[in-house]
């Protein structure tokens, strides 16, 4: 009961703060690529409101609400976090900042980093000053993430890194990269990898965007030639980077699945979006209506599953390999949602920059959802073996 009172007091305070501090322009629920504020040294704000919103939120720790206060967060507990998201959704507020630093590196550092590393790296992420990218995949490796060929040769106080990464999202706009580097070439595949932090401005780091079928280029190739990485820029132990990577993969899966789920109550009903573009009569097309209902039901139920796993995890019942399920279900659903949006959009959706904006680009982008961060096939194999205990 007293817990509830505290939470409600927090809600009231937050609501007041949002009312005062969230600029009106930032209350459009913007979810598309260009509404995102990524931060970093190369960042250009799309409007003064976007800048204000980031700065005000960062000052309160609301860019990373669950991180400890000393690392730039607001130290919210699970209940408060729910309230935070509810209140943000209530006024349709945009997220003030998104980044791989928040989603990926932050959780890894909070779990594996030293106190010094946390103090050094986390606050600039929370303030949107430093933008990070991820260096896992390598050409030809595909789903076999542990087949890392990029080498770090031990030079005493640093590693000399040589090799190539691929699918390094937004590497061309990032300031730093966290990467898997092979620091022991004799050890078994999973045992000789270290998780290193590398400054993209270091000599020998080069990056090049990969043009995607959606026309946009979020992904890059990144090359390392004799890049010196000081020994203190390692997260976790030497040659134990796979542990960090696995932890982050699980995290990434949950994150990607969340993108597709539209969460309970929060997201706009798919059918409502469809009904709009279908015209005044609403969603009368039997095929589209049937598909939309199914998709909406699944989206709501997957959103609830995300909530359930968070609640379980808070209750000390880890989700574990079930994150593979969330990743699989969430991304497959998101692909379906966008197929339906394309159907409903008809020929209006077939133009780049047509009357429906970038609907086609967004649709094509979703096709990568079931590939990046572990393919759907890999997720199903994980469930089959680790959850169901099937042989093979």
């Amino acid at each position, binding site marked *: 009961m007293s817990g509830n009172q505290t939470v409600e007091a927090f809600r009231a305070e937050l609501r007041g703060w949002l009312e005062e501090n969230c600029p009106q322009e930032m209350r459009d629920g913007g979810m598309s690529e260009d509404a995102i504020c990524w931060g970093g040294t190369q960042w250009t704000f799309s409007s003064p409101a976007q800048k204000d919103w980031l700065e005000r939120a960062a000052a309160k720790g609301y860019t990373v609400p669950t991180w400890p206060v000393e690392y730039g967060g607001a130290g919210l507990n699970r209940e408060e976090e*729910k309230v935070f998201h509810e209140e943000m959704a209530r006024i349709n507020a945009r997220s003030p900042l998104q980044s791989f630093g928040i989603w990926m590196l932050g959780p890894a550092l909070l779990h594996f980093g030293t106190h010094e590393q946390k103090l050094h790296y986390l606050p600039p992420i929370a303030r949107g000053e430093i933008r990070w990218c991820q260096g896992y995949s390598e050409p030809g490796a595909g789903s076999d993430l542990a087949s890392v060929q990029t080498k770090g040769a031990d030079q005493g106080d640093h590693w000399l890194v040589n090799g190539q990464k691929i699918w390094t999202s937004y590497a061309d706009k990032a300031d730093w990269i966290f990467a898997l580097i092979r620091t022991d070439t004799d050890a078994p595949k999973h045992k000789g990898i270290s998780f290193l932090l590398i400054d993209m401005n270091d000599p020998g780091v080069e990056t090049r965007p990969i043009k995607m079928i959606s026309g946009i280029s979020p992904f890059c190739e990144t090359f390392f030639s004799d890049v010196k990485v000081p020994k203190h820029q390692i997260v976790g132990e030497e040659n134990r980077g796979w542990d960090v990577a696995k932890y982050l993969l699980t995290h990434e899966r949950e994150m990607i699945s969340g993108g597709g789920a539209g969460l*309970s109550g929060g997201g706009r*009903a798919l*059918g*409502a979006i*469809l*009904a709009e573009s279908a015209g005044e009569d*609403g*969603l009368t097309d039997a095929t589209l*209506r*049937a598909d*939309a*209902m*199914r998709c*909406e*039901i*699944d989206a*709501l*139920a*997957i959103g*609830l*599953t995300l*909530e*359930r796993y968070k*609640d*379980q995890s*808070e*209750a000390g*019942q880890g989700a574990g390999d*079930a994150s593979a*399920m969330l990743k*699989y*279900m969430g991304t497959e659903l998101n692909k379906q949602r966008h197929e339906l949006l394309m159907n409903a959009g008809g020929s209006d959706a077939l133009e780049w920059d047509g009357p429906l904006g970038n609907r086609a680009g967004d649709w094509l982008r979703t096709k990568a959802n079931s590939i990046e961060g572990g393919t759907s*096939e890999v*997720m*199903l*194999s994980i*469930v*089959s*073996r680790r*959850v*169901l*205990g*099937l*042989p*093979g």
Partner: protein
Amino acid sequence: MAKLVMTEDETMLADSARGFLDSEAPVKALRDLRDAGKTHDAALWKKMADMGWAGVLVPESAGGSDMGSAAANVLAHEMGKTLVVSPFLSTAVIAATALRQVSDARAEAALAKIATGDVTYALAVDEGAKFDPNAVQMTAKPDGNGFRLSGKKQFVVDGGLADRLLVLARTDNGLSLFDIPADRAGVTRDASNMIDDRDAARITFEDVEATGDDLLGTVDQAMDVLRPALQAGQAALAAEMSGLTAGAFGMTVGYLKERKQFGIEIGRFQALQHRAAHLWCEIEVTASAILHAGRMLDHDPENAALAVSLAKARATATAKLAVQEGVQMHGGIGMTDAFDMGFYMKRARVGAEWLGDYSYHAEQVAALRGF
């Protein structure tokens, strides 16, 4: 919102129910009943009542344990696993929920009898092949201080043997719900020969007398009483179907590990692995919807409609997939009556229809989500 985690109490309830049902009501109990030409096991129901299950939704003042919908769903889930035959949903969930919407001595007395297992109920709504309460045509014509009921009902689950019937009929300005004994003059019950081997009936009402006392709630306002009862029933049915799904899936995964074809366990075939894994993912997602429905019914019943339809729709689709994959992966043996999988498939089909099919609940979701 309450947390989407099983509480310790719920886990204990599930464990104790499982222990009881494994010994008292394995699937073989259904098979034996069927082979004996029966659709109800009064002794089993009495034992369940003694364990407090009949009163799970009955207020403590009427002798129940008042544990709430989430707890009822836990029981339904466990019963689903072994296809337990009982009037639990009709009586302990639907009728109890309807009766507790009404605060009068008669309802209190009826609830007390439900809790002790001394009375069973059946809900008579359907008149056509599809669930559609608003389309009810059966009439309740004013007659003195009471009414005369005339019309036909079908798919009255547990209606062949129930002591009392909750009957939805059309009065002058709306629908009204009546609670009458099943043996009242003018009531004719024809047992339906159901594919799930359980009790259901087609019931004809010919000028059946109903007094003012037999009216449950307010005249023309049946939905005030019926809606919560339907929602509790739909959620519990969804939970039962998720239990059924778990039962069928457990058999299937076990078979995949043990059965050999072409010299190796069929569970090594990746195509089957991925299908089994997909099915497990669907089961997990459905579990969330069912847990959520229980929480909403217990904590925010006014706004539970979306959660309930979500649960019933998901449970229906998932159970269908589970029994289809179950039969297919078992091969020929899964098609034989000697094997239990067929019982799961047949119950899944009946559960799919009862209290609204996938399409019915999908349309509810669409309406609540604005399209």
